[in-house]
């Protein structure tokens, strides 16, 4: 799916060179990821493949600073360890920089609308990762933005976690189709995202949990 073949030496040689190179399908250019269903199954598989290549580059200490001069804004209403550090470290490894803004840093409290903040951010940074309580705030933010917006967790879903989980499954089993995934516990945002992401890539999903903590009907549908 990723076009690594065009005029390129075999993969092993490529990783030895000082500057590896990679070709991307531009189909995802400028695209926001707010819901699990924003990505088609093919796009999910492409992202997983790209992630695998980048992981290999990093493990082999091959520089891959392809986002030099680019910045990612992080707008976080809630504290975060993994999402924040992974995005910030990831941007650094890609040669760019990340700007973290916690809730106290923003003027949202001063009555500026979320859409205005998003419009202004879009003039300064190249992408925005957002952690907010309500998915509707995320959608409002994305509607004001002119750069890609990434959902860094809402109370409804957690698509980026589900994407990386699919990547982990692929690494572990070498395939996705035909696997069976069982989720035990709270039918929360995480289970909703996993259910949709697994379904998209052909992983059977089974949920077991108490009656009152069942996943949202909307997510199942």
């Amino acid at each position, binding site marked *: 799916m990723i076009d690594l073949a065009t005029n390129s030496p075999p993969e092993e040689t490529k990783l030895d060179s000082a*500057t*590896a*190179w*990679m*070709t*991307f399908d*531009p189909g995802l*250019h*400028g695209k926001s990821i707010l819901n699990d269903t924003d990505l088609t199954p093919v796009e999910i598989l492409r992202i997983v493949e790209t992630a695998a290549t980048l992981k290999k580059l990093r493990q082999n200490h091959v520089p*891959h*600073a*392809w*986002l*030099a*001069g*680019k*910045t990612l*804004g992080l707008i976080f209403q809630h504290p975060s360890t993994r999402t924040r550090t992974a995005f910030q470290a990831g941007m650094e490894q890609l040669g*760019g*920089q990340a*700007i973290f*803004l916690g809730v*106290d*840093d*923003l*003027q949202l*409290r*001063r*009555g*500026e*609308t979320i859409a*205005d*903040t998003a*419009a*202004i*951010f879009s*003039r*300064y*940074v*190249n992408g925005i990762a957002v952690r907010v309580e309500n998915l509707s705030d995320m959608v409002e933010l994305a509607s004001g933005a002119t750069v890609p917006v990434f959902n860094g967790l809402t109370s409804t879903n957690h698509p980026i976690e589900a994407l990386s989980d699919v990547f982990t499954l692929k690494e572990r089993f070498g395939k996705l189709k035909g696997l069976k995934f069982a989720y035990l516990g709270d039918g929360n945002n995480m289970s909703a995202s996993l259910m949709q992401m697994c379904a998209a890539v052909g992983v059977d999903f089974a949920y077991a949990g108490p009656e009152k903590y069942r996943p949202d009907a909307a997510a199942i549908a």
Partner: protein
Amino acid sequence: MPQFSAAQAVSPQTPPAHTPILHSVPTVSQDLSGSAMDRAVVLGGPQNTTLPSFTVSPRLRGRHVLVDTDFTPDEIAEVIDTATRIKRLYRSGQPHGYLAGKTLGMIFQHPSTRTRVSFEAGMAQLGGQAIFLGVNDLQMKRGETIGDTAQILSRYVDAVVARVADHNDLVTLATSASIPVMNGLSDKCHPLQALADLLTLQESFGQLSGLKLTYLGDGNNMAASLMLSCAAMGVSVTVAAPPTLQISPDILTHAQWLANHNGATIEITTDPAAAVKGADAIYTDVHVSMGQLDGAARAVALAPYKVTSELMAEANPKAVFMHCLPMHRDEEVSTTVADGAQSIIFDQAENRLHMHKALLLHTLC
């Protein structure tokens, strides 16, 4: 944005044919010591083939930007020109990491969206880094003097941008610092916003001299900066404010003097309808700013100065609406104006980025 590939990222960039040369002075970039201060600094180009050639004059090197009157009209024109060129590089996706290895310290006593994010993103785009220090990060609360803090920061970073409540603190900071200090908003003035607004006006009208800008509302720090910066560039300014919230007399005197010498006029009135007649730009700011306790009284006094479609209709047909943001729709401006075709507020916000980058290049080159 171009589709990226490593091949593209590592290939040397050819300087574009249209890259303008700012000055006619000789560009001897190898000799930057002592006597070469009157020459231009060439960044990129043959010296660093991965970066397009870019020229700035070094006469603002090491300078502070504390108040609007720190720059002569000539120097303001120069930073506007640099901002225009750096914006063009940014828009065309060309690398411009001319400040690699440089660090900007950011001391912020108040929250900020535009000033902070535009400086941090700007430094990143210029290849350097920014260190943000909010009020909780600094030890000033633990009794370290501003002067000591400034001296120590001067040993670590290459420039400081500070947002302080009291302008005197900023002056203390700059006096003790041995690096450029920029005013990221004080109670007295907001020169970086005014400079960015001049860039926006220049883009909108193709020139500055002869324009008329009308400011409606509180005669605050923003109004003071606009008055001084515009007057210096030959832009006439009319401020319509309630009697209780007029601009301070010393600013007014200074602005009058600047206007007289640069072919502009300064008018002060309490009548919004008269003020907007013939205006090319109508500007306003929030009616109740952060931390103001007399909010209700201010809101009442300022209500007649709200920018409405009716007032916009009294201005020139091509007039633009400007606001330094954040904005409260239907308080200081009606939603129809704020989101209407004449509004250039987001261009203003974007130009903060380009102006900050230009100032960083000029002061740190």
